[in-house]
């Protein structure tokens, strides 16, 4: 039976009517039209569904929407204003780290969480931080370079 709950998404309080078994992924994409998050494997392996919950990356396909109550959810749409992109978004774009773009939103959110807790990560630490994200197009090379470039520019 459907229930009305309040979620804090990208800094805004959203009231949604959901089934109790709905995943956060489903509520974000289907109820709130936030399709920047992608649904791919559906079982918590590929990372395309990643959002930040209180600043930490989480597979939204494995999280019940109910469990997001009282927490701050940030999706790729809420990372930065369109006319003022986050340095990670700019770096991904400039370094050629975006090919088809399906993994990109999730990757960028995990990268942000990494740089928030570790502003000068090594290559190994970067690779471990994005290990939960599958990319089939880029071979991860330019994604790692983009994150390194952002880390350098943010440290200035």
């Amino acid at each position, binding site marked *: 039976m459907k229930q009305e709950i309040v979620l804090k998404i990208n800094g805004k309080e959203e009231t949604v009517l959901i089934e109790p078994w709905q995943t956060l992924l489903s509520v974000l994409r289907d109820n709130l039209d936030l399709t920047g998050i992608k649904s791919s494997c559906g*079982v918590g*392996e590929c990372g395309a569904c990643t959002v930040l919950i209180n600043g930490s990356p989480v597979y939204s396909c494995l999280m019940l929407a109910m469990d997001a109550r009282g927490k701050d959810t940030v999706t790729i749409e809420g990372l930065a204003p369109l006319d003022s992109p986050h340095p990670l978004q700019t770096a991904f774009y400039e370094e050629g780290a975006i090919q088809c773009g399906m993994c990109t939103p999730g990757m960028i959110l995990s990268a942000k969480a990494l740089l928030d807790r570790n502003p000068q990560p090594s290559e190994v630490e970067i690779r471990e931080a994005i290990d939960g994200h599958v990319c*089939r197009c880029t071979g991860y090379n330019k994604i790692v370079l983009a994150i390194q470039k952002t880390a350098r520019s943010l440290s200035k």
Partner: protein
Amino acid sequence: MSTKYNVIGKREPVVGRMDRANGRFKFVTDMKLPGMLVGKLLRSPLPHAIIKNVDVSRARRLPGVACAICWKDVRKKRYGFCVEDEAVFAWDRVRFIGDVIAGVAAVDEETAHEALSLIKVDYEPLEPVFDMFRALEPDAPIIHPELQSYGAMFNFGLIRYGNVPCTTIVIQGDVEEGFRESDEIFEDTFTTPLVHQCYLEPHATVAQMDLDGKFTLWSSGQGSHYYQYRVHQCLGIPMSKIRVIIPGAGGGFGGKMETYSAQYATALAMYSGTKPVRVALDPDEEFMGGDPRHPSRVTLKTGVKKDGTLIARQSLMLVDNGAYGGQGPGVVPYATIYTRGPYKFAHARAEGMLIYTNKTYGGAFRGYGCVQAAWAGENQIDKICDVMGFDPVEFRLKNGVTSGDLMVTGQPIQSCAYKETITTVMDGATKLYPEGHMKTRHQRPLERKMRGRGIGTKEYSSGFRGTSAVAILREDGTLGIISSGVDIGQGCNTSLAMIAAEEFGCKLESVSIVTDGDTDSTPYDYSSIGSRVTHSLGRAVKDAVRQVREQTLEVAAQIMGDVGGQDMLEIVDRRVQVKGDPTRSVDLEQVAWKSSNLIGGNILARGVYLPDVKPLPVERVKSSMYLEFPSQVYSSHLVEVEVDTETGQVRVLSLKAAHDVGFAINPLVVEGQIEGGVAQGIGFALTESIKYDKNNRIVTTTVGQHGIPRATDVPMIDARIVEPGEPTGPFGAKGVGEPALIATAPAIMSAINDAVGIRIYDVPITPEKILKAIRERYGK
């Protein structure tokens, strides 16, 4: 990176990609149209059975179901890439677990699944065939009894019988004579499994019929015009009533050359009034009902002289094709001609055979059979070097092809930087190993971690299939390109825009190019496949722009009056000026406006590319697909690995990949292709496969289970671009999309052999296989 050009040769981010970075781009799987229905497909649970009856009536009556359809609701027509053996909905029999029998369109997923469960199918099971050798036996069940009546798109001496839809034979010289001349003969068999493309966005199409009976399709695919034709072919809808738009696919890698969603979404839309219907494959459907890389069994017999000269190579490639032709009749001939490898053999004979079995059937996947061919061919070259004591780099520099040498088909090779790719990865060295290394490397005692270096190389084709594009000077003086290059992640339209800007003489930002392949308004292009877009569509774009530039100068000369003709003029940025004299100029915008009066409208032109290839003689090549290609591309991969001899795990420590691309229009994108391809190559070599259970049912349902490499599995890849030019390519460019991964697996095998002295003949090279081989070798 070139400095002689203004636009091309520079590292340009793909135009528009910020929309992926901020999540605003809508993939087909993100689309939500008003009233959109969910389409789901009913698939056969049996591998081989006669269909006695299909009853969709109860599904139709379920509230929330717009339609439930089967073969009775669409025209009975077989279609296919080279062999026309597929059907939208099976009507006579099902031939693999996953064969589509029916479809429903409903208000939501739950209702659609419930509707599927209400469809009643009566089957009469038939004896299935799962093993290709069993399928070849004279008393084997015949999977396609009407094989001889099936149409074939190409017929170059096509041979088909029993469970064999096609065979390919290519003959160069006389291999028996070659073997007689040889001092050593090597005979080996190599195998590869079913491997999925693992794109993150599945096959998906939204189809909607309007009140005039015209269908609009938004599809995640690789060719808008190709899909348009396929849907027309399957369902009989006139081409003029089908419009296909591809906004940008979430990956393809060949797997979306064919469509497994467009025909279904359209068929369901036919019966849903004007409501849009979305069909998107679920992950498990992708693995059982998509079109993965064909498994292969390649037997090679190679003759070599004791001084290391390669003399003759005979190959037989057997492909367990699965239940329908799919892309097999293209993949096998293609692979067949590349088993010889990039070497100057005097004699070669290559045969390939597709065999039907009651399993999931294969499609196009980056490398199109050549990944399998190179796994065998290069692996055996490494073995020859190992056994006979030749340095693998020196051996290849001695036997490798150069420009002017002939392919196994007799076609001359145009630009060829094969040897340069080797010396590039070697940083100029002409030997891989130090003196004496090969004599002692296999005498080392077994240690916990052992390192090795190896090399793999390859040959592939570029630039097939003619095409056209239109260029137009828009009213504001900017350049418009109307072409149907489809973006599957490779950013082809930026490269094409760069070619246009260079040819015209303007900046990249002054060029706009169609990016959604809209069939209503773009000229036909074959598809974004075969590493052909930069080469083929690039040539057409360049030709169109050349004409537009000439017409622009002509009109400008008329406007400017006393300049002495258009040869005195040049285009600089947004103006036409007298060469070297910016004070005498006219804005392009003015030229565009005035052309309406002067020439009756916009300056526009159609550019064309027709590959200059002659058909191959049937005595030499019998095939189910054309095998003439205008040019070839080459690469070398140099790998260092570390083998953990207790766990069997292999770490790729470093990987250098040098690719002959003719000329890199956009080096940033070329590097991205190489790097992405190498990662797929590492996965193919070490971890990836679709797995079956003992009842021949596919049990792989996610990319993780498939074994796709993650960021910690792949080193920083060192991609090197080699640019010998190419007479048939735009500004000398050739393709790189597919070649990217072909040399990787054999290079890794070569490095593993260097490390621990074992050779594996089957991919993926799993820890189990390594440990078994180490035990056999070291007796532990």
